[in-house]
């Protein structure tokens, strides 16, 4: 485990080099909350409730969900694998005595831990600036479930992006896959609109998909909603992680040995 922790630390150190990245990431978090404040302020002008949300409940959801979605940075994994396979430098990962997927997991952890601090600070500042009466879950069990679900959701996203990356071994270009994934993720994770505002039958379909548990449900749980879905959510996202791991193993086995390797 020490080697993977060192990989995490290395990537954490690498993040510290890029000061502009840190600042822009914070600004982006802030701008999302500002946008939400203006948008929902207009929507709530004549209303007390939208769906099951009060104005402050909605903003609380936004602060938490934007915080979680900012932490989900695994998209870089698929492009890293794709680019390195295409330009012939993927061998960097093949020749070192470390599991490649675990290397990427550790890399993601390093990046996430670094941004966690700054994103948390940005979210806290905006709760204070806008005097948001933050709505937070009251039961520790629900909070614990939300945190476990957040971790599993991030693991799933790393797995998904790793899987899409290794599809380069078969398809050379994975741009279309990434585009579909990105569109699906931005809609289904609830980072644009809370999924609770969708019709019930749509939400029941989304509950079967892993993306529902990446940002949306943990954000809802942390803001005191959907507590009854907590345990079921952990089971479902856990199953998706296991399934995705099996798919990754099968894809690696099939495509890696057959790959011509001209570009490795």
């Amino acid at each position, binding site marked *: 485990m*020490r*080697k993977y*922790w*060192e*990989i995490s630390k*290395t990537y954490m*150190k*690498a993040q510290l*080099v*890029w000061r502009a990245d840190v600042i822009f990431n914070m600004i982006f978090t802030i701008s999302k909350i500002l946008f939400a404040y203006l948008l929902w302020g207009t929507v709530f002008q004549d209303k007390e409730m939208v769906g099951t949300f009060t104005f402050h409940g909605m903003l609380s959801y936004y602060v938490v969900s934007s915080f979680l979605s900012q932490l989900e940075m695994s998209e870089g994994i698929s492009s890293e694998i794709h680019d390195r396979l295409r330009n*012939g*430098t993927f*061998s*960097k990962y*093949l*020749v*070192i*005595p*470390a599991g490649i997927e675990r290397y990427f997991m550790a890399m993601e952890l390093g990046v996430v831990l670094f941004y966690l601090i700054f994103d948390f600070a940005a979210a806290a500042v905006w709760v204070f600036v806008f005097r948001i009466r933050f709505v937070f879950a009251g039961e520790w069990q629900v909070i614990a479930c939300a945190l476990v679900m957040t971790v599993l959701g991030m693991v799933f996203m790393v797995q998904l992006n790793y899987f899409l990356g290794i599809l380069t071994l078969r398809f050379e270009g994975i741009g279309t896959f990434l585009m579909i994934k990105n569109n699906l993720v931005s809609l289904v994770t609830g980072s644009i609109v809370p999924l609770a505002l969708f019709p019930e039958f749509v939400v029941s379909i989304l509950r079967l998909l892993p993306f529902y548990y990446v940002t949306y449900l943990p954000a809802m749980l942390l803001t005191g909603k959907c507590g009854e879905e907590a345990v079921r959510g952990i089971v479902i996202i856990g199953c998706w992680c296991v399934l995705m791991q099996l798919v990754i193993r099968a894809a690696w086995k099939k495509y*890696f*040995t057959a*790959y*011509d*390797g*001209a570009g*490795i």
Partner: protein
Amino acid sequence: MNQTNKNIISTSGLIKTYRRYKKPEGIRGSIASLFHREYEEKTAVNRIDLTVQAGEFVGLIGPNGAGKTTLIKMLTGIIAPTAGAIDVLGYYPNDLKNAFKKQYAVVMGQKSQLFFELTVNDTLRLFKEIYEISEDVFQENKNYFVHLFGVADLMDVQVRTLSLGERMKMELIVALLHNPAILFLDEPTIGLDAIASRQIRSFLREINEQKGTTIILTSHYVEDIKTLCRRMVVVNHGVKIYDGATDELFERYQKNKRIIVAFDSPAGTMALKTGSAKLVVDETYKKEYEVPRQNASGLLAELMGHEPKDITIEEEEIGIVVERIYQEGGGDCHA
């Protein structure tokens, strides 16, 4: 030198075939290829039998596309062979076992293991953990290589600010940190100036002699091969065409030398007594002659009489040597 007679690399009938897509020319060809694609097979490595003993320093040469890098990739497990047997340190490389990967290192001239944003010390610390090196061995090796390469003042500098030569030294330190049994080097001196290349060669010789590290080196530069490798393997079109002593190869196949003479004042055509010398470049201030090796000293003495500003003697390029081996049928002299 810590040399034993144990084979640590062994291949038999090793083949690697690439499949590549052929697109007819033009937009019509592009549209047609959406519906029907033609593929052709290219054999990059063709039935190569190779054994390497512990402690050897082997040069692997051949023109571009000869199959050298493909062979290295198969030996390190980066790609799987299409057919044939391969055994490196008792492992099938493409299984990519961590225990196997801890016993070799690979340095490719145009690919880096360093983190450009970080310092070399940070990267070394990472590799210490990845290779599970004890603190004592880590410090001992780090000090040894830092002293050997003379880079103590560069260890806390961001990698991206290093020159190409400095970076290559760092790549070698990272690669050698875990005391690998085999070091694969693919064009380590590519793009380096003469001084940096000479330094790298000197380090490699010391590592091979002092640490007993087996080294497999591919290079386009005659100087690299001639000064370092006692044994040469020549491949062309994926086939091994020579395997034997380096001295013997150059004795048998490097038949000519190129002598370049520069003058201060315009030089006309010179009537030379060394009849076998061929004028290959004829410029006002510079002449280049190709001459059989045995006649080189005679031509040199004769040219000195024409008061040149400068004289350079060059060996024949590897490509020409390989071509000659290929034409003359080559040989496998390795016992």
